[in-house]
């Protein structure tokens, strides 16, 4: 993605940011994204984000892992090479429970985390796209695309909510 002009507001606390986000949204101005040092409770709802679909991905990986594990064991011990162990049934379902469980957990965890990293664009060595590097320490940022916002109005609004600084910059986010 190429760079674009954004109005960047910085705060030193999460509550003013949250209030500001609500008001900017109420005024009908679209917000690009917010950047915070830790998960701020209620910020995703205030920004109008839909609930993450990762749980659904996790469930599907779980079903996949469960089926693969059960199929693998049943095929290996029941069909491909059945063993006669004291005349007991080759398809000993209760014995398959532990490995089925472990593989379900393994594939769900790896699949979901993989999905999370790829969907968020977090891969080894990727460049961090953020307006201010202090956002990973103690600064809370809001980024509003300039083309759909009135700079003076937004500036006044953010300052009223206690922003430390508001500026317009051309960056890649």
């Amino acid at each position, binding site marked *: 993605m190429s760079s674009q002009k954004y109005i960047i507001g910085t705060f030193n606390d999460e509550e003013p940011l949250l209030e500001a986000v609500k008001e900017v949204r109420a005024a009908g101005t679209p917000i690009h994204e917010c950047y915070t*040092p830790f998960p701020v409770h209620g910020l995703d709802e205030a920004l109008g984000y839909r609930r993450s679909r990762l749980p659904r991905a996790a469930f599907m990986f779980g079903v996949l892992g469960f089926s693969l594990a059960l199929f693998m064991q049943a095929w290996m011990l029941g069909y491909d090479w059945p063993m006669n162990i004291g005349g007991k049934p080759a398809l000993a379902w209760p014995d398959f429970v*532990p490995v089925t469980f*472990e593989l379900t957990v393994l594939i769900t965890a*790896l699949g979901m985390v993989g999905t*999370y990293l790829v969907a*968020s664009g977090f*891969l080894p060595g990727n460049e961090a796209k953020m307006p201010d590097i202090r956002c990973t320490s103690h600064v809370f940022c809001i980024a509003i695309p300039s083309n759909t916002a009135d700079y003076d109005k937004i500036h006044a609004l953010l300052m009223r909510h206690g922003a430390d600084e508001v500026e317009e910059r051309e960056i890649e986010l």
Partner: protein
Amino acid sequence: MYESPIRRPLITGKTSYAQITDDIATAVEAKPTKWWYIGFIVSLAGLGLWLLTVTYLLVTGVGVWGLNKTVDWGWDITNFVWWVGIGHAGTLISAILLLFRQKWRTAVNRSAEAMTIFAVICAGTYPLLHAGRPWVIYWVFPLPNTYGSLWANFNSPLLWDVFAISTYFTVSLVFWYVGLIPDLATIRDRAEGVRKKIYGLLAFGWNGSAKAWQRFESVSLILAGLATPLVLSVHTIVSMDFATSVIPGWHTTIFPPYFVAGAVFSGFAMVLTLLIIMRKVMRLEAYITLNHIDVMNKIILVTGSIVGSAYITEFFIAWYSAVPFERYAFVNRAFGPYWWAYWAMMTCNVITPQLFWSQKLRRNITAVFIISIFVNIGMWFERFVIIVTSLHRDYLPSSWAMYSPTWVEIGMFVGSLGLFFTLFFLFAKFLPVIAIAEVKSIVKTSAEEHIKKTAEKEGIDIKEVNPQIA
């Protein structure tokens, strides 16, 4: 979120967000202290001993161990179970306590989980070497081969164990790393030059956006939900290695819950041993407070009591079963040639944790440190007692035997401690030992300063409701 002012603080002293970043990141950025070097060199010496004994073992063969035809599981399996058990506290703290919304976990989960990963690595070396030919260890996995294919036997608890331990290791590692990413980004954004490059590579381009945090929380919650049954399953399956056999003293249905409780018990003891040293050496007393130590001691008390009652139940059931072999196995444990191991276990595991009924002792660092060491020792003896005393006198008195370790086994055990501590020292130097972002998220509820403010706002005298703060 509202938090009552009667709650004990989880962060003491000044707590601005910038301050928290500074406090924790400085440990990664500054030159290591003298104590770090001393500890690291001692650990490296241990690691050297481990490499030496393992090399000798591989060159000569498992005959260098003191095992014999009757006692064919000795220190190797004892150490394996001991290390796996220790590895249980980390995931319990980061997963089960996350589901229970226990805020105190934020300060200890990172190091506890690192400890889990290192303990599982140490544990893994034992079955690997016990198998005799580690270079063909991939035979345990169901891989296509030229013998048929002759597949792995999924009816065997030993194979379940392979899957349980490797899944546990992988999921713990992934869980730990997912939590580390935001903190690595924090370090990245403070660093310069080569360090910035390295931490930047490791931080995966984390940017702290609201969407990323939303996904992060979703992933953490699901990983916690997965890791909770996983952590319970691991020691359950380890116990099945014993419980599904027909050895008197092993063949009991109480084993899975009893092993899990014992694992959590020993894991928390090891967490305390490590954290008490770490908070002092790295000056993290404001984050790992006496309140944290207090709650962990309560968990030790609960799990220790479960373990204690399991010992007594086991003994009672052995008598009640009226099976002569079963009865003999237990009488032999307590009064046979290995009586000293049994009573060392009973003293360390049943009596010492009961001292934690006293709040004074729970909050006395020296006492906690000593008791945690006792629990570590006691839990090692538990595994030794279960394994060796059950095996050494089997069904046929002519094959009864005694077992004692050789220097190779002792060297490997001491050496695995070296391996463990080497990894832990490296972790403490190069990675943030406290989850920076997670601690910040509880500042507005659980920091000392905040609790004072809430009390003021409500017109409550803080001295009266929360004497600890005043």
